[in-house]
């Protein structure tokens, strides 16, 4: 299988601190990959580096969108990274609170629309049709995610689990081939987590989107992931399927501490 995201020797320095140190991670098409590690290991920094929020100090971030040649994306601005097909969510909820659920999703759709500012003001028929299609597409996405009963609610008034799902819906609206989820289950109750689990698997199977997620809920990670990458202190320490990772002594040491140190 060909990787759709290929990160080589990614290094991120903040002053003297190496938040990421020569990390190599690749995600294959149709995979659910997980990135795990103790707090402060550099997982979110990794996401920030590939989505253009921080320009990485060193290394290469390459993507291969389906049917397109491989291209380097490090140093690109965030909105261009999104245009090339990477979408992400955050650890904390970052919805556009003053907008309705539909508007939140539509705004994700906008980067796929062609008409510019002038057209938006003059509103020729082509623009109206495009806008109509955006509404239709957004509604369809909400239906798939199971949020269609909330369409015209203000985003801020949704229950917690639904807000989390709306973040995923908004990310999907940008039509990504790779979805980066930063702790999607954070703060969820077991029922909500179960629904999220189903949603993620459904997305992989039906939406032609691969997923890379950061998660602390090990049960979720182990049940979902095809491939797990483990980082600690900015370094990648292990990779493999859930069974391999669980039995890897390096991983156990990172999570539980070294026995000899404690003694």
């Amino acid at each position: 299988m060909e990787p759709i995201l290929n990160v080589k020797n990614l290094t991120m320095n903040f002053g003297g601190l190496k938040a990421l140190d020569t990390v190599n991670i690749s995600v294959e098409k149709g995979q659910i990959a997980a990135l795990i590690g103790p707090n402060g290991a550099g997982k979110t920094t990794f996401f920030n580096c590939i989505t253009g929020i921080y320009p990485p100090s060193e290394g290469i971030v390459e993507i291969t969108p389906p049917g397109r040649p491989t291209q380097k994306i490090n140093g690109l601005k965030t909105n261009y990274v999104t245009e090339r097909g990477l979408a992400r969510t955050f650890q904390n909820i970052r919805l556009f609170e003053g907008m309705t659920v539909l508007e939140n999703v539509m705004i994700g759709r906008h980067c796929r629309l062609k008409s510019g500012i002038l057209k938006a003001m003059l509103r020729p028929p082509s623009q109206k049709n495009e806008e109509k299609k955006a509404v239709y597409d957004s509604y369809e996405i909400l239906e798939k995610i199971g949020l269609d009963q909330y369409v015209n609610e203000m985003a801020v008034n949704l229950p917690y689990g639904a807000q989390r799902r709306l973040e995923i819906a908004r990310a999907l609206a940008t039509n990504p081939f790779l979805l980066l989820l930063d702790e999607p289950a954070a703060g969820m109750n077991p029922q909500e987590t179960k629904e999220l689990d189903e949603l993620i698997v459904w997305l992989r199977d039906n939406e032609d989107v691969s997923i890379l997620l950061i998660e602390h809920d090990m049960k979720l990670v182990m049940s979902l992931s095809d491939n797990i990458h483990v980082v600690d202190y900015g370094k990648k320490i292990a990779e493999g399927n859930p069974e391999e990772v669980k039995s890897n002594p390096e991983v156990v040491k990172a999570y539980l501490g070294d026995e000899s140190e404690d003694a």
Partner: protein
Amino acid sequence: MRLFNIILGVAVVGVLGFLGIKEIIADPVYFLELFLGGLTRGSIYALIALGYTMVYGIIQLINFAHGEIYMIGAMTALIVASVLGLWGWNSAVIVILAFVFAIVYSCAYGFTVEKIAYKPLRTAPRLSALISAIGMSLFLQNYVMLAQTSEYMPFESLIPDFEFWEPFSHIITSVEMTIIVTTIIVMILLGILIKFTKIGKAMRATAQDKIMASLVGINVNRVISTTFVVGSATAAIGGVLIACHVGQINFMIGFMAGLKAFIAAVLGGIGSIPGAVLGSLVLGISESLFTGYFWSEYEDVFAFTILVIILIFRPSGILGRDTTSKV
């Protein structure tokens, strides 16, 4: 303390209300004149305050050069109207071209000011950008003074007096009417732009969370530029209209108008568009009533007193949200 404030507020409003009603009954036409004059004034403030509040909403910057954009709009209209007038063009064509040129020039200035003075400071502390804004304001004032003149220049009204309106023109002139109607139209268009269009949604999203906005594919820099351009366009319209109303302009008109519009924006709740409009109308009308019933020389003192009072009792403005809860 809170109860005391409420009692004080009620007492003040009661006394003023009582005196006010007495005055209004004594001479209703005078009141109407003052009220409509205030509405006109408020409309102009609103056209300028929109630029302040939109820019503040998006990049949390008080764009002190905004008043100068308004002045440049008026100057451009004056130049265009004078030249075309000399050539003997039709007055309707002159009006349209004066507005078009004023808007285009002001937008170009607004756009450029943002690129030169604010964009390089996007990540700098807010105070740096504020100082840059004040610098830009002084620069533009002096630039226009040197390029044009420091004298007051007569500005012949572009808006003709409507004949049918002659009998009522002491209550409200046709220019004042035009100002109010134009402002309403601009507000409606702006409302549609913000509420329903793609760029409007992008503006709202950017105002709330720039990083998230760029992650859903919005080009944040373009949205910020657009905001400056839209704000400059409304200011330019305000500039031309006020020049028609007052009949003379110079390079300093943007200074006080800009400050007043800033007060209006703060009064309404800076960052809020309906707030800016409401604040402008409240400030315009109360200023007009104050000058009409009390002392006209203290007009500016009154406006700044209002600013001080808001900052003490309600820093977030009439429609503004509490900024402390936003964190």
